[in-house]
C-alpha cells in the first residue's frame, strides 16, 4: 500500500494520485463499487446486501425516502462509518486499505448544511482545503480564485458565510470540495436547504463540473422534479437495498 503522508506528503501528492488513477486492480472499470454491503445500527439493519457501481466520470443520483439508508451509504464512502459488512472499492482499490485522510482527499463531500466555518471568509473557507494538506499559498490562491469565478462568486471572496444566500453558501462548499481536484464528489442532499431556484442552480453547477472536469458524482437528493431533466442514472434505496 502506498501511503501518502509522512515523506510523500511533503513531496508530491500527484505521484500517488496518478498511481491511484492508473490502478490496475480488480474492478478497475468502476470508480465506486459496493459489493454486498451491510450496515446495522444496534441490531436494526439499515443497509442489506447493497451492491452497485458507478463508472468513472459518471453522475448518479441516489434517491429514497427519509431513513432509507442513503446517508449511511454515503457515510461509508466518505469514511464516517468504518464498521460495515461487505466490500467497497474506489477505482479498484479496497476503501479499507486506504488511509482515511487519503480517501477523503480523493473523495470530496458536500452537505445539506454546507459545513462552512462562520469565522472564515469565503476565500478562507475554500483555501482551507488546500491548507490542511500543505499546498502552497500561491497555488491555493490561484485555484481558489479560479474556482470562485467558476461557481459565480468572483468578487465575494471577503464575505462571510452569513452574508451569503443558501445557494451561494453551497457554491462555496462546492468550490472548497473541488480545490484539491478530487476524483469523486459525494453530495449528501446538497439542495435540501435551498429553494427550488437555488436547488436547480446547484444541480446544474454540479452537472457542469461533472462534464468539464470529469469528476465522478454521487448525489443524494429528494428533488425528483429537478433531476428529471438530467440525463443521469438514478439509483433508489428501498428497504435497505439499492435498486436501479
Amino acid at each position, binding site marked *: 500500500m502506498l501511503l501518502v503522508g509522512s515523506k510523500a506528503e*511533503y513531496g508530491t501528492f500527484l505521484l500517488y494520485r496518478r498511481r491511484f488513477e492508473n490502478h490496475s486492480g480488480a474492478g478497475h472499470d468502476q470508480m465506486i463499487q459496493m459489493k454486498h454491503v451491510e450496515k446495522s445500527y444496534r441490531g436494526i439493519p439499515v443497509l442489506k446486501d447493497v451492491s452497485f457501481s458507478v463508472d468513472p466520470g459518471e453522475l448518479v443520483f441516489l434517491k429514497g425516502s427519509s431513513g432509507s439508508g442513503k446517508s449511511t451509504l454515503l457515510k461509508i464512502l466518505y469514511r464516517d462509518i468504518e464498521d460495515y459488512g461487505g466490500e467497497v472499492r474506489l477505482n479498484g482499490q479496497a476503501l479499507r486499505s486506504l488511509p482515511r485522510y487519503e480517501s477523503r482527499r480523493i473523495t470530496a463531500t458536500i452537505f445539506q448544511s454546507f459545513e462552512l466555518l462562520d469565522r472564515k471568509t469565503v476565500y478562507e473557507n475554500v483555501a482551507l482545503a488546500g491548507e490542511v494538506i*500543505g499546498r502552497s499559498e500561491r497555488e491555493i490562491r490561484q485555484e481558489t480564485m479560479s474556482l470562485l469565478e467558476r461557481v459565480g462568486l468572483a468578487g465575494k471572496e471577503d464575505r462571510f458565510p452569513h452574508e451569503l444566500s443558501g445557494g451561494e453558501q453551497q457554491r462555496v462548499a462546492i468550490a472548497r470540495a473541488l480545490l484539491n481536484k478530487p476524483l469523486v464528489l459525494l453530495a449528501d442532499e446538497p439542495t435540501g436547504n435551498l429553494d427550488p431556484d437555488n436547488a436547480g442552480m446547484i444541480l446544474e453547477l454540479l452537472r457542469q463540473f461533472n462534464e*468539464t472536469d470529469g469528476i465522478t458524482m454521487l448525489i443524494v437528493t429528494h428533488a425528483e422534479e429537478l433531476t428529471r431533466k438530467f440525463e443521469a442514472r438514478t439509483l433508489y434505496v428501498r428497504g435497505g437495498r439499492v435498486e436501479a
Partner: protein
Amino acid sequence: MKITKVVTPETPPARRTADRSVTTSSGHLIRYYLRDAQEGIRRNAGAALATILLIFISLTITGAMVLLKTGVDDVIGFLNDQVKIKVFVDRQADTEQVAEILAGASFVRHVKIETREDALAKLQGLFRDMPHLFESFRDSRFPDAILIELEDQSQVETVARELAATRGITDVFYAQEFAAQVLRWSQLISTYGAIVLLIFLLASVLTVGIAMNLSLYQRQKDIRVKLLLGARESHVRGQFLLEGVIIGFIGSLLAAFAVYLIYYYALYQLQLRFSAVFDFSALSLNLTLLGVILFGMLIGLIGTYLSTRKMMKHG
C-alpha cells in the same frame, strides 16, 4: 430559473484526464499550523491566560527553589570546610591548663583562649546600637572558651565527640553541627516543597488540559471539517499540541525572567557580600533557566496530549 454557468477554464481538461496535480510541502503545513495555533490561543484567550499564569507561578517557585537549594548547598559546603571547634571551659577548671593539654594533642594545629572579657568585647561590637541589650549580658557569668583549629577537617566530628566527654569542658560547638542542622531543615523543606510543587505542576497540567478541552469544544466543527477535507488526524492533533507548547513556552519564559530577577536581586547580592560562601556559577543559572523553559513546554505538551487523546480515538 436563473442558472449559474460554470466558467470553463481556457483549456478545458478532457474527461477523466484532467490535470490533477496537487503539490504539498511541510513548510506550508508548518506555517499553517503556526497561524492556526495563534488563532486558537486568541479565540480562547481567557483560558490561555489562566494557564499561562499558573505555569508562571509553578515554574517561578520551582526555579527559585532550585537556586535556593544551590545556595543552601554552598552554605553547607562552607560550614563543612571549617576546621575550628569552640569549647566552653568549666568555671572550676583552669582554662590555660586545659588549653595547654589540648595544644599538645597530635590532631590540634593551634589553640586560642577566648576569655569572658573577649566575649563581652565581641558582644559590645554586635550590640553597638542596642546598649540596653549589651548591659543585660554584662552581669552574666560567661565561661571562658577555647578555639581549637584542627590539622584535618575530616576529623572534626570525632574530635568534637571526644572533647564533649572530656572533664573540664562543658559545651562543644563546631560548624559541622550547624551544617547538619541546616541540612536537616533543607531536606525537610525539599520534601514538603516538592509535594507543594508537585501539586502546582499537576494543577498546571490539568489547567492546560481544561483550556485545550474548551478549545476542542469550541472548534469541534473546525476539526470535523478539516478531517473531512483530508487533514491527517495526527496533524489536526499536532495543531493543538503546538498550541499547548506555545502556552507553556510563554508561561515558562515569564517564569524564567522572574527566576532571573530573584537570582539578581537576592542571590547575586549575597554572593557579592559573602563570596567565600556562595558560588553561583553562570552555567548553573543558565541551566536552571533553560530547565524552567523546557519544563514549561513539557507541561503544555502533556496537558494537551492528555486532552486530545479522545480526538485521536474518535477522529
